[in-house]
């Protein structure tokens, strides 16, 4: 299950219109493919992907978004 969720996250991160997206958008995209996926599992999977250096956090200070490493803004600018 966890592997399936991770795969769905990466698919969304590669093909989403915007290169940075909110967690909620991620959650909706995963649940469209795997309806039984729970928010907490999706969060765990996203955290694992961050630790595997496949996803990145993008923070404005007040809000945090996720992105695919290497897509869109990749350097710290």
């Amino acid at each position, binding site marked *: 299950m966890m592997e399936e969720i991770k795969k769905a996250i990466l698919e969304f991160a590669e093909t989403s219109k915007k290169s940075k997206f*909110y*967690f*909620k*958008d991620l959650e909706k995209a995963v649940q469209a493919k795997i309806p039984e996926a729970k*928010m907490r599992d*999706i*969060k765990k999977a*996203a*955290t694992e992907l*961050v*630790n595997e250096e496949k996803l*990145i*956090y*993008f*923070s*404005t*200070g*007040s*809000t*945090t978004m996720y*992105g695919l490493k290497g897509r869109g*803004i*990749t350097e*710290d*600018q």
Partner: protein
Amino acid sequence: MDFKPKRPQKELKYEELRIYTDEELHNYTEEELKDFKIKHDIPDLEELEKGPWPSFVADAKREALHRKKLPKERMMIDQDVVDDLLGQLQLSFDDGETHWKHGGIVGVFGYGGGVIGRYSDVPEKYPSVAHFHTIRVNQPASKFYKTDFLRALCDLWEFRGSGMFNMHGSTGDIILLGTTTEQVEPLFYDLTHELDQDLGGSGSNLRTPSCCIGKARCEFACIDTQDLCYELTTHYQDELHRPAFPYKFKIKIDGCPNGCVASIARSDMSLIGTWRDDIRIDQEAVQAYIGGEIQPNGGAHSGRDWGKFDIQKEVIDLCPTGCMAMEDGKLVINNQECNRCMHCINVMPRALRPGTDTGVSILFGAKAPILEGAQLAVLTVPFMKAEAPYDNIKELLEKVWDWWIEEGKNRERLGELIQRKGLPRFLEVIGVPAAPQMVKMPRTNPYIFWKEEDVPGGWKRDIKDYRLRHKR
């Protein structure tokens, strides 16, 4: 109650952690400061130094001079970073717009918060602040620090950053102002490994929970605010560091209704210590206040002669619910009517004390945004016991989070969601019955949407029949 750390605590010794000697730190005289000019002209900022109040410009200039004289080989970012900061601020005054760019992917590995990316949009003019990232340091409950820790942190921040701090930001953390991307990971390593210190929350995370001084120093504290704050901080580490909320979420804890951390106005979940039995009265002490033997307000207003203490005028007549009176020379309180304004207890702390059956009132939905104006929290749970391990509070909080994560729009605070969906829906979600105290003006606007199942016998309503008599 004794503090029981959840993991072994490291004893910090500044002498082992210091980066600069005393001579290196005390490196300029007041005379030198008088003649000191930073490398940019900052006429508008210097205006700010002229008023009666301490000015951040004066502080920043001290730091600029101080950094110029620190040993260069032990400074990992530019020595003139403060000069460039002030220079860029002057430019913003000239242009009437900011020159900061905000946000980015800068952070420490595995954490979604704690570091806020900041970049100059005029780096060629002010190269030392081209990167000027902000770092949040998780404050301990009630902000008790050993000087060893603070001195070591100051040294570390001169070494790896600008040397400038906010003590503290509104969330409660110490804010380290300004460093480069290259220094963020090493700084985090030093903070965690040497100073045994975590980062605080930022972004769409649980923000660092914050509490008042509590039972450590305050006799009014109805709950152990520090223990609760520490418990929530450690229990919700994942929520603090790995963002999955629609927006920020703040928890603040006041030990009594005096509300010294103003949780009611600036936290999504506000926990306020209270009691559900009676205010304790010491009638002898009441007489001592009346007789002038004890100063009212603990002597706080003794700088001027206000005349003899008048219990009728200064306490009883000021009670917002009129629930106090003197009867046969004794002070009596109709405790059912007390709304915890704290005035009588504040004026006569030796005669009146909060009750002993204590817990918390829980309020939700406050926020204090700069542009739209503040929104106060809604009293949702009038009373709940607050005893370790606080499972009842956690259970309630998690229900609220689940609903907010499910229903909240991106960048929507809990208070906005409650307004959008309505308080009755929120109460349904958390399983709390509605009470008159939740209505803003229950006597003039008792407007409630009843559901059929709430009313004995229900009702029948034929919309076609209604429309025959009422045109759209």
